[in-house]
């Protein structure tokens, strides 16, 4: 009996231990965020984006960790940065240069958003476009935007948004082709060497104001000639003045010689 009761006690304590371990493990599995995220299903858009991400793997790595000397990590960059880079055609990049420039995009807007959704959901979130962007952006105040533009943007992009030179072959691009989403995404995420203008610094409303102002600049059409970043066709003016004056002087001499 003694030996029998000892055996039974051992079995009972082993079972108790097993139950405790299973309980602890189960709770851990339930509340652990990492494990949960890995298991969480991707949204439909992100699933589509996952397919498209094949184009990005060679430089940014399978898990968005980046590849040394090729591409930076995408962990935490957020969907806004992805949409800006892809929609302006900067990504996928053609090569490693001083600056990666705007070119015809390889993916359409929908695909860019799917890629953004995938990187947002899979590699840790970052800045995102507001859900009501397309309607809210129409409420921008041009006058206030002009003030903000002159304070925050004009030092690099020039007063007329024509852009300007930076160091070692880099430059602030012209804003002539930038869409509202491009401008918003650039301010929010600070692509390449552009400083970040987070929502604490320029609220979404202030960003809409800046966009409204830039769109006004864009709708201003140069009257003709070489615009020199909205400075005006001064080169043509000088040429006309110099050549025209010389021509007139010779005409006067010719007339005087005739008489």
């Amino acid at each position, binding site marked *: 009996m003694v030996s029998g009761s000892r055996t039974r006690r051992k079995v009972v304590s082993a079972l108790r231990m097993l139950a405790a371990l299973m309980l602890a493990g189960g709770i851990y599995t339930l509340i652990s965020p990492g494990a949960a995220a890995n298991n969480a299903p991707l949204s439909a858009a992100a699933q589509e984006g996952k397919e498209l991400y094949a184009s990005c793997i060679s430089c940014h790595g399978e898990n968005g960790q980046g590849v040394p000397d090729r591409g930076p990590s995408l962990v935490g960059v957020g969907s806004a940065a992805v949409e800006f880079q892809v929609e302006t055609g900067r990504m996928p990049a053609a090569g490693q240069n001083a600056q990666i420039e705007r070119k015809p995009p390889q993916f359409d807007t929908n695909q860019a958003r799917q890629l953004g959704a995938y990187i947002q959901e899979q590699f840790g979130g970052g800045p995102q476009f507001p859900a009501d962007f397309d309607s809210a952006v129409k409420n921008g105040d041009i006058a206030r935007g002009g003030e903000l533009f002159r*304070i925050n943007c004009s*030092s690099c992009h020039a007063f007329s948004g024509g852009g300007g030179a930076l*160091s070692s072959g880099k430059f602030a691009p012209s804003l002539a082709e930038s869409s509202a989403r491009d401008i918003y995404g650039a301010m929010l995420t*600070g692509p390449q*060497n*552009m400083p970040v203008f987070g929502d*604490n610094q320029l609220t979404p409303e202030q960003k809409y104001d800046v966009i409204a102002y830039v769109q006004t600049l864009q709708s201003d059409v140069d009257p003709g000639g070489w615009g020199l970043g909205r400075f005006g066709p001064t080169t043509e003016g000088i040429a006309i003045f110099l050549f025209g004056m010389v021509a007139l002087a010779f005409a006067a001499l010719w007339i005087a010689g005739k008489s």
Partner: protein
Amino acid sequence: MTEKSRFEIVREGARKDGIEIVHYESQFAPGSKTENRMVRIVAFFFLLSGFAGLAFVAAYVWWPFTDFPSVDGWEYAPGNSPMKGFTPILGLTLGVTLLALGLGILTWGKKLMPHEIAIQERHVGGSSPEERKLTGNTLAFIGQEFGLSRRPLLKVALAAPAAGLGAAALAVPVGMLIKDPHHPDIFFTTGFNPVNNNGKPVRLMREDNTYIRPEDVSVGGQITAFPATADGHGASNKYADSPVLLIHLRQQDADHLRGQLQNHSQNKLQNPSDPNSGGMYGNLVAYSKICTHAGCPASLYEQQTNKLLCPCHQSQFLITENARPVFGPATRRLPMLPIGLDEEGFLYAKSDFGGVPVGPAFWEKPEA
């Protein structure tokens, strides 16, 4: 008689050169009424020139004007020009000096010099010693024909523009040595000096007079900050030398800069265990926006390379090495504004750029 014979020599010499003086005649009979009138006109112009030159000096020294726009007159209003006619009066007097001198010389040349027609054949080769002697005589004759010895009034009158112009040319450089043009301390203090905030430390603010919290600047972002002075004009021209660029560096860049700052006694950590005891607050750092080369706003910030560019002459400052100039004409670092956090959670200036003058070099600027 010497005059006559000298002219004959000149004519003979000219002939030897193949030059025939076919016509030579004074415009007015020497000593005639008309000539005297011309002499007086020339003398009048010279005297006018001399007086205008002296007037320039007098205006430069005594004309009232406001020394510095920041003392008063920084705000534009009609008639509230800081110079109050100073520049126009300088331009007017110097202009009259030069114009009258020119008119005097012109009149002299046109009216008092004889009319001459000479015809010369071209020749080859150099001139013989004899010819050179003749040429010397010719020049002496021309000097004589200016008639300074015959017209002593002109000699005296010429002294006037000489004195006036000379004084005008000397007034500016000598004046700067006599009167220090720099307002006391104006280049040594900015709006971040507690003097401008009733002795209390000055907070950083945006252009719309709102204070700045550390979280308002995103990582990789920057913001232009102004001194929140008691008079509420911190973001105006009154404190035009004060704006700073407040930059939020990335962690590793900020660590690098903190390491660099250890060599700069001004902004290094006072307490090695407290990262906020130096010139930086967290990963935030503020540098003067006024380029040390020519005073332009250096505000083109590259967030990946951490370079700050000045658009005027392409100077570049490397922020992570305490704003060391790495390219372009600037030779001095941008001064750092040491910042801290006050009890209400707003950024403030711990001192006025640590006493380092902002902006371009000037005569009394100490070596930093």
